């Protein structure tokens, strides 16, 4: 059992309530005591030290905090940690195995789908969710599936190519062909 406050900073004042939650994060059950108002994104970043999940706005607009929640992409800055109690969360740290990149990660590298990399984890998780429900998307479908994730560096073109590269790879085709 981990207390968020042991890991990050002193305990909250005595009058601040906490709630114990258990969340399956990247395949591992994590039990933590959290303030009810704590956002899932902040739990991941500060409490669980999974800093691959980013925060970029406070209006649910940018998508840099995107994680998979029971397999669906959600913006973890707009979900309370207590809402994740009993659910599965996948972050960028859970995408690849020790030896192998996920095809989406590989696609982003092959097609130069990232520059500064700040939007990248959220983009990749949104793309992974898309390809799991639609293995052969059109360019337009990729663009719309990623429309909740902002990128300021790439102009999106290479991100789209990266996702289409991954789709081919996941369908067993050679993306370089």
């Amino acid at each position: 059992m981990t207390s968020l406050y042991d890991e990050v900073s002193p305990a909250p004042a005595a009058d601040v309530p906490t709630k114990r939650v258990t969340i399956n994060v990247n395949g591992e059950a994590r039990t933590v005591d959290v303030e009810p108002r704590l956002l899932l994104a902040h739990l991941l970043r500060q409490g669980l030290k999974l800093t691959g999940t980013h925060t970029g706005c406070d209006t649910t607009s940018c998508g840099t905090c995107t994680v998979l929640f029971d397999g669906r992409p959600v913006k973890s800055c707009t979900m309370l940690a207590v809402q994740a109690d009993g659910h599965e969360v996948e972050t960028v740290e859970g995408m690849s195995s020790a030896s192998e990149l996920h095809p989406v990660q590989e696609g982003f590298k092959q097609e130069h789908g990232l520059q500064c990399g700040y939007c990248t984890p959220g983009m990749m998780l949104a793309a992974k969710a898309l390809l799991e429900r639609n293995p052969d998307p059109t360019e337009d479908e990729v663009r719309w599936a990623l429309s909740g994730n902002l990128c300021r560096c790439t102009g999106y073109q290479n991100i789209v190519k990266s996702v289409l590269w991954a789709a081919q790879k996941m369908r067993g085709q050679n993306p370089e062909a």
Partner: protein
Amino acid sequence: MTATTETPSALGRPIKRKEDARLLHGQTNWTDNIQLPGTVHMAILRSPYAHAKITKLDVSPAKNHANVVNAFGAAELGDLNGSIPCVWPVTDDIVMPAFPALAPDTVRQVGDCVAVVLATNPQSAVDALEDIVVQYEPLPVVIDMEKAIAPGATPVHADAGTNVCYVYNLGGGYEEVKAKADVVVKRRFINQRLIPAFMEPRSVVAAPMGMSDEITVWSATQIPHVLRVLLALVTGIPENNLRVVAPDVGGGFGGKLQCYREEVLVVNLARKLGRPVKWTETRSEDMLATHHGRDQIQDIEIAATKDGKLLGLNVELIANMGAYLQIITPGIPLLGMFMYPAIYKMEAYNFKCTGVFTNTTPTDAYRGAGRPEATYAIERIIDELAAELGMDPLALREKNWIKHEEFPYTTVSGLTYDTGNYEAATAKALDLFGYDELRAEQKRRRDSNEPVQLGIGISTFTEMCGLAPSRTLGALKYVAGGWEHCTIRVLPTGKVELITGTSPHGQGHETAWSQIASSILGVPVEDIEVVHSDTGRAPYGMDTYGSRSLAVGGRAIKLAAERLIEKARVIAAHQLECSPADLEFVNGVFQVKGDASKQQPLGAVAFEAFTAHNLPDGVEPTLQGEATVDPDDFSYPHGTHLAAIEVDTETGKVRVRTYVAVDDVGIQVNPMIVEGQVHGGLAQGIAQALYEGAFYDEDGQPLNATLSTYLIPAAPDLPSFITGQTVTPSTTHPLGTKGVGEAGTIASTPAIINGVVDALRHLGVTEVAMPATPMTVWKTIQAAKGGK
């Protein structure tokens, strides 16, 4: 061993980026990831008013809040309330108001810093802001620039007595050439305010490091080296006790080219409290407190003969400084000043800029910084002149642009462009675009009065980047040089450390710099480690902005590598018992000319230099090369961009159907990275044309200072671009390269708006305001109809 043969150089190849692995795994080191033991977190009370007197401020109730360590207003901070620097006093009589980090008595913009709370966790610091007692007495607000400089306007800075920051003049002779012109076209363009909106919010951590007097500062900044100097000057901390690190930085676009209030506060409070202090902005703070860009009123007039020969150009700008001067706020319009004449030959050019204070967020560098504004104005008015003359806009451009055989060419504004080939870039773009077919389709749609009209937008641009020759900067009163540094070390194990003064934040310097060094040293790209963005490990540099990193930093890399080879050659010759002149250096190996059996690889030379057991007399141990170089001139990339724009005349909706960008950035180190830079630049330039604009109401309240209301384009809002290239090597750069970081942004805004206007010109439309949203375009169409 057999004789080595030349292997392909790493230069010019689309090598996958070294940077990607850690970014793809989420194993990054953003400033906000840093969690040091004992950290206190800063939260800032910001002004909700655009202009007000602070009549009461009591921070003491906040100190009673759980987990709060301390709280400060300007009075409590005293001498630690540092003054924020401006390093570009553009004229002798410029008004440079005081800019304390915490406002002592008057707030001048929404988001001005009033007080800070420090607590042992971030949420307690934010909670305790509520306990601060503050009262304001609102003052009259100035937002509109023309009203700000009209008689009787309330000055933003009362003691200045005026809202005119400076007036700058350049050139002359326009009135004389205007007198002989057949045609004169005058327009007013509004280059609206933009927000940089890099994806990683700003963050800063400062920590006294215990064992010494050193304070280490981690900041999400583009300019760790410049920031160190400025923090030393502002805080009084000896510069040699300050170490500034820019860890992974998530984009900047000029917005992180700054010495911010929050950086000064965090450093001073870490020193005062003797423990680490951290602050990470929310996006809502970012949109108020990170400097903005653009925001100019441009009155531009062009004079020509009836057959379309340009005679002269007159430009009068009113440029919004915002409420305070930040690092190079006043100089931004002057970076555009030289570029209004662009690629065109003419006899006279007059320029005047009036810098104006208003109760808004300060402006400063944003991707292109002055040059997008200039390029927008000239490329727009060329189209207007073409319409007035009844000429094809491309033909008018061609008639007046500098011919490729005329380079080097000194323009009417005094710049000397080293090379260019506008004919070749335009021919390539036309080829990719299908100009004649689209003109035919345009005519067909006009003739049949279709609801969706087609327009063709043209932008034949050049820009000056690669900031910059130090003497030129000095002549412009910029208080710094424009040089760059590189040290290359071959370590005893043969691995290479390349220490650069550039500070990447997404550009891919680690890969590209390795390619340059690899091509000279013959060492594999993967054996080169690029060290950057840490004044402790990379002590000298002028950082990354203004498309300068390759244009200036690339020179230093090349020279440092060449110097290293020359030192190694002397050592290798000693080892191989020959004269240095008898050695050739191929693929990282010295070998005696004509005797391939006698050779020594660079790594072995490095080991000899390390042991120093057998070095020639007078040769110092260790193998390294250093260079600090000042560029001879700016860099002048150019290109031709063409946009096919569909405008739905019934709804005002604009669609970019085809976008062709042919850019000439000279020799390309990594074409994959070049294309990525162009794509990203296009997105930001198109965003200014169609989507983005930061607006205030008359009380100075920001109307769209969140990412849900400030429209950064998402993937469905942009097309796939068709990119092409011509390669005209720079003759002033030893690698033949030019800058690329800003080109797409500079070129694309006028291409889009020219296309929108072209689609609607037959309806009587001659101008569309930016951003050209459906509402704006629809209203413009209605007004043109009503005016007939």
